[in-house]
Every structure is written in C-alpha cells, then in structure tokens.
C-alpha cells in the first residue's frame, strides 16, 4: 500500500471525494463545515473543486477545543481560533470535513458542537484519510483513501506551500 504524501498525490483523492460528494449531496444544497485546522484546509480544496455555487453558504469552521474529552488531563489548548458558522444549521444538510479519521474522538466532539448550534437535517462525514484505530462507533461516508498503520504510527496533514501528508512514528517523535 502506498501512502500519499505530496500535493500531487493528494489532488486525485480530493477529486474522488468531490465526485462522491456530488453523488450523495448534489441535490441537497449542503453546507460545508471544516474541522480546524486540517479539515478546514481540505474543505477549502473541496469547495475549489466543486465550485462556489455547490454549497449554499460560505465555509463554516469548527474548533472543537472546548468540546475535547481530555481537558482534565492536558488543560487548555494554547491557541483557539473560535468556531465560525456563518449560517443556521437548522434543517440543513451538513458536510463535515476532517483530514484524518483515527480514534473518532474529534468527530464525536464536532458532532456535539454542531448540535449546540441547532438541529441539522443530516450530517455527512468526509475525510481525506481513513485509518484503523477507531475508539468510537463512527465511520466516514466519503473517504479519499483508507490506509492501515501500526498503532505507533501517525499521519498528519501539513500546509506549508501546499498540502502534504507526513507519516510519523512514536519513535521519531521521541527522537525530536
């Protein structure tokens, strides 16, 4: 299995996702919501590919910092860009976007936050990378690519002059 890493390798995955989004949500005037920060980058790319008119409103962003389940263990995040949903979610079809689906905890927090804004008609989850290691009963509806990694490996999206995926293992992290 090759793991995508460069922008050139990510681009076709974004198109796969966009095609699938058109099929699933094409007639639903969906609203686009990216999870800060990797999900926002992916959401912007999807909006670029699908065109400005596909979504019924500008991109919404969610920062799940206040909904995390580990505050008691690690405290406040250093920087929190507040969530910004420039629309009402009530009775709308939402496309929730993240970069990597791993444990499912981020998506759990994002769903809780979304429902504090109102009652959407539906939420569809799209992720660039789906990997093994789920800790909650959640799955993505739209996936760029599924990969299998060992428990000590992490895949991380970066955005310095274009999107890139970096594969790290715990051993590397300890070396830094």
């Amino acid at each position, binding site marked *: 299995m090759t793991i995508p890493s460069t922008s050139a390798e990510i681009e076709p995955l974004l198109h796969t996702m966009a095609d699938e989004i058109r099929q699933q949500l094409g007639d639903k005037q969906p609203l686009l919501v990216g999870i800060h920060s990797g999900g926002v980058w992916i959401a912007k790319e999807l909006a670029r590919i699908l065109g400005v008119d596909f979504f019924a409103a500008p991109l919404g962003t969610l920062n799940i*910092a*206040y*909904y995390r389940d580990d*505050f*008691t*263990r*690690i*405290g*406040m995040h250093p920087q*929190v*860009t*507040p*969530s*910004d949903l420039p629309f009402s979610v009530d009775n709308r079809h939402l496309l929730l976007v993240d970069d990597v689906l791993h444990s499912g905890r981020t998506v759990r927090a994002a769903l*809780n*936050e979304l*429902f*504090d*804004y*109102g009652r959407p008609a539906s939420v569809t989850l799209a992720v660039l990378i789906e990997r093994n290691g789920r800790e909650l009963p959640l799955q993505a509806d739209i996936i760029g690519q599924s990969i299998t990694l060992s428990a000590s490996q992490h895949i991380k999206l970066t955005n310095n002059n274009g999107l890139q995926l970096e594969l790290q293992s715990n051993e590397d992290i300890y070396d830094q």
Partner: protein
Amino acid sequence: MTNNQLTDSGQLRHFLTIEGLKKPLLTEIMDRAEQFSSISNRQVKKVPLLRGKTIMNLFFENSTRTRTTFELAAKRLSADVMSLNISTSATTKGESLLDTLHNLEAMHTDLFVVRHNQSGAAEFIAQHVAPHVSVINAGDGCHAHPTQAMLDMFTIRRHKQHFPDLSVAIVGDILHSRVARSQIQALATLGVGEIRVIGPKTLLPTNCQSLGVHVYHDMENGLADVDVVIMLRLQHERMQGALLPSAREYFNSYGLTEDKLQRAKPDAIVMHPGPINRGIEIASSVADGPQSVILEQVTHGIAIRMAVMSMALGAQSEQHETHS
C-alpha cells in the same frame, strides 16, 4: 508575592492581583476572552469545557454584577457553580473564614471565587487551599479587583486597539478603590502611554506619582484630550467620613457631564465599573450617551471570567500531569 499565582511553567493558577503579572499573560487573558465571547451569541450558550468541575462563589460582601457574571461564566463553561453570601462577623473573621473554607473544600470544590471586604482575603485563602484548588479574587477590600481590571482592558482594546497610543483618565475615589488600583497596574503593564488620575486631594493616595500616573485635581485639565475616561463609583460612606463636603459639590467638581466630556477626544469612550450613582459621579445623559460603553463592560465581564476560570482550571490539569 510575585508568583504564587503562577505554576512552575508560568500558567495562571490563582488570579489574585494584576501586580507581578507580565504583559503576555494579560494579553492571553484578553485573547481567550475574545475566543469565548462568541459562545454567548450561540443558540446554546454553553460549551462543555469545565463539565464536572465545581466552582464556589464565596461572597463575604454584596455584589450583583460581579457575582452574576461569575456565575454565568461558570455555567457557560458547563461547570457546577454555587454562590454563597456569607456575612462576616468582625471578631471571629480569621477563624470562621478558614473553617468555612475547609468545609467547602471537603465538598471537592475545584475553584473558589472570593469577594471580601478585607484586603488580602483572597490571597489568604489561596495560601490555605489544597494544592489542586484555585482561587480567583473578585474584589478584596481596597486592594485589588483583577477581573474587573481585565474586563476594562478588554473593553478598551475592543475600541482602541493600540495601548501605547492611549491616554486614560481615572476619575474619583482612587484612594479607596480596588478597581482603580488594579486598573492602574494593568494599564501600566500593557504599556498605556499616559495614565491620569483625577480627584480631590482627600480621595487620592499620597504616593500617587510613584504609581507612574499623572495627578490632576480638576476635570478641565485632567480630561484634556484623553481617549478613555473611567469614572469610579463614589461610595456614600466617604461623605460621612468628612472626606467630601456634599454630593452636589462633588458632582459640580468631579461629576462627568456632557460639558466636561467635551474636553476629551471626540471619540473618547466613557467607562464605569458599576453600579453607577446618577447625578453624583456621572450625569445620566453621559451614562446613557453615545460615548458610554458601560453596558458593554458588563457583557465583557462574562467572557473575561470564562477566560480566567478556564485558564486556572487548565493550569491545574497541567500541574497534575507534570507531577504525576
């Protein structure tokens, strides 16, 4: 005193006074308040950040605004909060305070918010609580009221942005005002260009200049070209204490009227920590006028208190983590 307020890594653990805190920390408090302020505009005005934490408001002295906004701030962060109004008995104060404290601690309180008419009460409590408990000062005697000062700084920043360019005048009973003391420290730490205090000699501390402020005894000169006018509440007991002749005379000399406000910059903002005495330190037409941001201050109080409570409880987590 510098820094029993901070953890080893410089995080805010207690918030007792502005004194000794550095500019980046004050800026962080305002930045976090900015991040929290949008929550109050949501359909569900609540985030689960402090779910399961217990916050106890200990008010040994009356308060409506401060207590309510601390309560609301705790609730918007999903903490469990209780407010206790405890009347003090002068003879047994020291002992009853500690007894009260230990009883409430035994109920697994994570954070105490304390208001007391004795200077130093919050710090005293902070010295005696268990290591995993935080204390926030909601006003102690004539000493400090740091969350009020920070919500004022936040309000100024919302309107004026760049602190070094500003000239800020604080008017009234500086001598007895914990608000003024904390404001002056915060303004100085944030690098405000000029801080002025305006008031009669009987209500200004004798060592005013050493605080780094310019002293004026008249509004005419004191308000000239300032960007921010902060009015302080005149407490009635000052009149009884023979520090002032009468409310009417005070209003004539130091009450903020539209005429006197003309001396300030045209876009100057008018602030007041509340509750206001209309016709004593401020005219109704100014309190309700276009330059007044008095009600905004109240709104900002919630966000500032959310910021400080979450930072203090977050620092506990961090301490716990690094020591475990």
